Structures are given as structure tokens and as C-alpha cells.
């Protein structure tokens, strides 16, 4: 693999449960 210039940035992920909350609030917001 090609030599990397800079390290990749770790993207912090919400947990499944937090995503579930997002989904629920999304569904509540949508008419």
C-alpha cells in the first residue's frame, strides 16, 4: 500500500440506540 501522508481521522459514531432515538425523533417530526 502506498505510503500514507497523514493518518485517517477517526469518525466518532453514535451507538445503535442513539441512532434509534434520531430515527424516532425524525419520525415524530415528519408529518
Amino acid at each position: 500500500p502506498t505510503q500514507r501522508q497523514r493518518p485517517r481521522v477517526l469518525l466518532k459514531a453514535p451507538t445503535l440506540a442513539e441512532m434509534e432515538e434520531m430515527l424516532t425523533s425524525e419520525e415524530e417530526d415528519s408529518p
Partner: protein
Amino acid sequence: HPVNIPRKEKDFQGMLEYKKEDEPKLIKNLILDLKPRGVAVNLIPGLPAYILFMCVRHADYLNDDQKVRSLLTSTINGIKKILKKRGDDFETVSFWLSNTCRFLHCLKQYSGEEGFMKHNTSRQNEHCLTNFDLAEYRQVLSDLAIQIYQQLVRVLENILQPMIVSGMLEHETIQGVSGVKPTGLRKRTSSIADEGTYTLDSIIRQLNTFHSIMCQHGMDPELIKQVVKQMFYIIGAVTLNNLLLRKDMCSWSKGMQIRYNVSQLEEWLRDKNLMTSGAKETLEPLIQAAQLLQVKKKTDEDAEAICCMCNALTTAQIVKVLNLYTPVNEFEERVSVSFIRTIQMRMRDRKDSPQLLMDAKHIFPVTFPFNPSSLALETIQIPASLGLGFITRV
């Protein structure tokens, strides 16, 4: 006139560009509205996963972390939504279990982490993500895959459950073997299955259906093995539990029927090259109970043989089968109390569980072994049937 020069695959970089505002449409067309029996039938296995990953690649290429986060979150929530809506449909659950796993494998295969690049071509290594480490999202996807797998087990259990007792115990697969009615008991079923009852063939046909759907969806072979092992465990546990609770099932001829049925299930495993799945081993308690119905039960030597043979049954289960055992005809004696005492004495050191019934609801822990794909991303084309015209191959 602008000449539309068809670009060769070698010019494509295996990414898909889409506008941020088109993300909801992407999730709707690729996840929420996609019917596994519809257009999805003609897709290459795992195509939705590859498309989603190629979109992630482009957002990573743009170094747009918001776009990556939004797409991953919408993808995960989209899959959860569709499984809430159609989560009792085996094809839907199998389809999204396969695609969730393929998406997870892509995130690993193209993560840039050495351990996941061993099987990559040099071109695939050029396609690794450049800006973001998505290890935390991989963990969330793995948690999602576990949830989907458990949902798949519930769905197949609901389909199999009504077939098991009838097909494995009541229906006389070998017609006439219990021609002689067990003394004092009305014969429960005719040798030809009545209309509406399930037979062993019903069970095997259902296993075939499950297996072909999972193969059609491109489910990882190691995962198919785990699903089959779980199915066989359910069949074995439900059959044994009913045998332990029903006097009319504890006879020599029923032992013969069960052994024949188990041999047919083993034949199915062999046909599907699934003998290493561990499925056969889950039937061992049932196999031993069937043998127990057929062996001699009189002398100390018989007791010794039974204790050696029944290492997958608890003492409570062995005693129960011996108590329920019903001689085939008046010439045969019932199992004596003293013989059962001998068995109990010989097994008192076993200290096994006092539990009589098997836990038919037990789900084996699932694993998703890394399974890289040889598919070259730059060759992937998006069928018009998916309605994704707003996405551009890059």
C-alpha cells in the same frame, strides 16, 4: 454537439457521486422501496451494499465528514426502518442481513488497515478510504447485523415451528413400521399424511427454500452455516421436548421413525455441503433419545450401555423416556422400576442439570468472519431499474 464518449472502466475510480440533497432519495430507492422479490432479484448479490459503499468512498474523497456521517446514519436507520416494516418476511430479512454484512466487509476491506488488505488487488488497495477511519461505524454495523440475524432466526422459527412435531414425530415417514398399534393407545395418525398436516418432506422443502434464498442474496457461506446450525438446533429441541412430554411418542417404532427422519436431515446437509456447519451435532440429544427407545432395557449390561451411549441427555431426560416407554405389543414388558433405579444410581455422579426440557429458544452467538470480495468497484454499473439516475459514476 457534445460527443458522449463512453468512458472505459479503467477510467472509473469505483466511486459514486451524489448531491447532499439527494441522500433521502438514495435511501428511499435503494433501501426503503427496494423489493427483494422485485428488481432486486436480478441484481448482483450485495449490489446495494457496494453502491452505498461507493457513495461513502466519494464523500470520503471529498473529505466531507458530515456527508459521510449523514449517509452512514441514514443507511443504518433506513435498514432498521425496513426491518421494522417487513421484519416478518424471510426474504427481506435475509436480503438486508446479506447486504449489511457485505457493507461491513467493504468498510473493512477498503479501510486501509493492513489486516484487511491481504486479499486485495493493487487496484483495490488504491480504492481504500483516504481521509476517514470508520472503525466505530463498523462496530455499529456489526451490532445491527447481530440484531438482523436474531430477527432472521425468529422468522425462520415461526415458519418451521408448526411443521416440526407433525413432520418429525407424528407423521409416519416409513409407512407401516408401527403397523402394530402400541398397546392401550389409539394410533394417532394414518400412515399417509392427512390433508394439512406437515410431513418430513414439508420440513426439507422449507429448508431448501431458506437455503436457496440466502444463496441468492449472496449471504456469506460462513453465515449460512450458522443459520442452518440454528435451524437444526430448533428442530432437534422441539422434537425432543415433545417426545419427553408424550407417552404416545415413546415406543420402539417411534424410535425407528425418528432415526430415519434424522438420517434424511443429515442427507440434506450432505447435499448442501453443510456437514461442517455443526448442524448435525445439534441433533445429538434427539438421536440418543431415539436410540434409547430401541435398545434393550433389562439387564445391568443394558444399563451400562445406556449410560455410556446417552452422553448428550440429562439423567432426568433418560429417566423420563424410560418411564414413558410403551411396549410395542403385549409380548414386550414395560421398563421395570428396578432398572430405572439402576440407571439413576449409575448416573448419580453426573451432577447434570435437573432440567427436563431443552431450551428451544436458545440462539447461538453469531459471528461475521471477514469475507473480502474480489469484485472490482470500478466495474460496477447501476441498473436503471433502481431509479438512481441522480447518481454519477466517478
